[in-house]
């Protein structure tokens, strides 16, 4: 993006009633074009928000951070440069670059880094932060030639690396990956000496654009994709199974097919991180089963569900996989080496992101792996991630058993021995709660999404409640699968957040949630901030059972609920 384009984007009018998004841009240099570019990138990533960027005082990063401690913000973007750690590491001050200064500079940098770290950690407890450590080259302070790494330079980088490692472990701080920044903004092109001397702004425009785009991305923190559907022949492995046989497929250096091994390795890692992985292949199913069992692939069959191997259209396989997973098409990636199959799937499922596996181009295939990391990357791995695939597999088995004449629903639920654990802790809020709220579509009261700061702010009044519900039964745990939040209003309860994972459907967990609200809060009525969305049909069906066609302002009385609620068999526990 050019500066003129950034200005045009930043000046675009926002829709009336757009929600405010207040972000503090904190740096020690003049924010100048960084403010413009960050504003523009935030506008592009938050099109429904009114962006307000606040800046601080020139030359005082630590002071600006101190002032952030009491500010009410949705997010902070903190950009640190070497001159913030010691002004002698910039070019606007003349404090000395002599050998006798080096030790003092290191001491100063160490102390200032510790001060900034403490400030950032304090702020991050309330406000989510995006942080960038020094991205400019160090000035020629050390007495060694520039092609040789000096102990001075290395020590400074070690101090900053220590700061980064510590901050990266904090859930409230997200750091720009310096490797990614270097890919899109070569280090040698970043420093604009003239601009720094003239205006106190040290970055070349191309670097500001790159930096601002990554900061905005960290603040936006896009929801990761949930599932990956892969082809087999010349994708998961090299070779056409039907032609070369089980012993002919490969994914190793010896057969010059290592890129397929790397792809399997990535898929296995994703599966272990909670990503759903399925197969859609035009193949003989018996042969596919044999290949998985005999060849011991890096991605084992136990990590894959379902496997759609037949000679029908891939789009039909994708339809069945989406149904088995019960996730939206827009959260799924389909990978195949055949442009024709990709086009066929895309035509039937336009929301599925279809990616080509470039089997004859290792560099492009490696780029695909990097792209997968971006699409599926997440903040942390939860207990739910570890059990997701197994619970979906079990749910699928249950549906099949029911179809084959398994016990009636009541009897089935009774013998399942379900247990619900309700946690009312809200300070600090369980991070799983916000994750569920921001990614659940089908059983979602109104589709509202929250930034981390907005979520914390809505929970801070003492009369608000938060319930996080976990479920397990004799078939195994589902983990934390539902979230309710709202406030008490006299003899009624106002609920404006209610989400439940689709993995938890058909167990009357939603009925039990409502029963628990009436019981625990001892209220006569529960009112809902209900909004119909294109995706929340399952929730609407549930509410309609008690209150007719759901509309905004919907409420359910205790007597209506008790008169219509089917038998509930779950045991209730508090954590």
């Amino acid at each position, binding site marked *: 993006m*050019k*500066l*003129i384009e950034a*200005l*045009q984007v930043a*000046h675009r009018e926002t829709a009336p009633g757009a929600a405010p998004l207040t972000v503090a841009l904190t740096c020690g240099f003049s924010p*100048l*074009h960084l403010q*413009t570019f960050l504003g523009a990138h935030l506008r592009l990533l938050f099109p429904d928000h009114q962006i307000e960027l606040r800046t601080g005082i020139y030359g005082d990063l630590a002071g600006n951070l101190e002032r952030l401690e009491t500010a009410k913000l949705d997010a902070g973007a903190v950009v640190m440069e070497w001159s913030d750690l010691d002004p002698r590491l910039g070019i606007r001050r003349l404090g000395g670059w002599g050998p006798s200064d080096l030790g003092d500079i290191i001491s100063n940098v160490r102390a200032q880094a510790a001060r900034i770290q403490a400030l950032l950690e304090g702020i991050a407890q309330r406000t989510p932060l995006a942080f960038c450590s020094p991205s400019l080259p160090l000035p020629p302070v050390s007495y060694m030639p520039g092609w040789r790494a000096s102990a001075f330079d290395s020590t400074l980088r070690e101090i900053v690396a220590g700061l980064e490692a510590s901050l990266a472990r904090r859930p409230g701080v997200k750091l720009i990956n310096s490797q990614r920044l270097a890919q899109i903004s070569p280090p040698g092109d970043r420093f604009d000496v003239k*601009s720094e001397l*003239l*205006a106190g*702004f040290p970055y070349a*425009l191309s670097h500001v654009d790159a930096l601002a785009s990554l900061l905005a991305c960290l603040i936006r923190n896009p929801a990761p994709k949930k599932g990956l559907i892969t082809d087999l022949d010349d994708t998961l492995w090299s070779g056409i199974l039907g032609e070369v046989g089980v012993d002919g497929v490969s994914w190793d250096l010896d057969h010059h097919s290592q890129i397929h091994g790397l792809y399997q390795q990535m898929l296995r890692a994703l599966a272990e991180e909670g990503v759903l992985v399925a197969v859609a292949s035009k193949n003989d199913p018996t042969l596919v089963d044999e290949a998985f069992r005999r060849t011991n692939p890096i991605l084992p069959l136990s990590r894959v569900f379902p496997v759609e191997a037949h000679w029908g259209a891939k789009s039909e396989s994708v339809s069945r996989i989406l149904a088995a997973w019960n996730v939206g098409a827009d959260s799924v990636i389909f990978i195949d080496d055949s442009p024709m199959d990709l086009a066929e799937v895309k035509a039937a499922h336009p929301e599925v992101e279809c990616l080509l596996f470039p089997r004859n181009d290792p560099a492009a295939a490696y780029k695909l792996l990097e792209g997968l990391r971006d699409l599926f990357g997440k903040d942390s791995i939860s207990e739910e991630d570890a059990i997701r695939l197994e619970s979906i597999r079990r749910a699928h088995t249950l549906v099949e058993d029911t179809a084959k004449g398994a016990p009636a629903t009541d009897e089935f639920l009774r013998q399942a021995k379900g247990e619900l654990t309700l946690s009312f802790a809200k300070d600090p809020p369980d991070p799983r709660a916000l994750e569920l709220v921001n990614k659940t579509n089908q059983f979602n009261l109104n589709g509202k999404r929250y930034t981390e700061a907005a979520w914390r702010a809505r929970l801070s009044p003492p009369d608000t409640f938060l319930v996080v519900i976990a479920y397990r039964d004799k078939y195994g745990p589902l983990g934390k699968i539902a979230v309710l939040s709202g406030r008490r209003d006299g003899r009624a309860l106002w609920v404006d957040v209610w989400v439940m994972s689709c993995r938890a459907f058909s167990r009357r967990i939603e009925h039990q949630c409502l029963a628990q609200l009436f019981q625990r809060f001892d209220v006569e009525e529960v009112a809902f901030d209900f909004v119909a969305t294109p995706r929340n049909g399952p929730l609407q069906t549930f509410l309609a059972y008690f209150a007719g066609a759901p509309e905004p302002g919907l409420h359910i009385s205790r007597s209506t609920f008790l008169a219509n609620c089917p038998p509930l068999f779950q045991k209730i526990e508090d954590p």
Partner: protein
Amino acid sequence: MTHDASNQVVAAGTLEARLTRCFATVFPDVPESQIAGASLTSVKGWDSVATITLLTVIEEEFGVQFEPEHLEQLVSFQAVLEFLRGRKDVAPLHRLA
């Protein structure tokens, strides 16, 4: 539609039209018909930050480099226009599309 100092319509793609676009972007509150007469004294909000932003946008648009003394000299639309007309190294429009 772009206007010159005598409020005549200026053809798209000319130096004047391109400069008007730069001014209109940096000073979105100034009506386009008044940009040809814009100056440091007539435009509310034309401060030192706006000067640097404007000159950086012009550097990007026309592929020229300003010197520090230009910050004090190029303080009106007409001054910048004259400066650009005097340069042989102004980048043509197609370079910037």
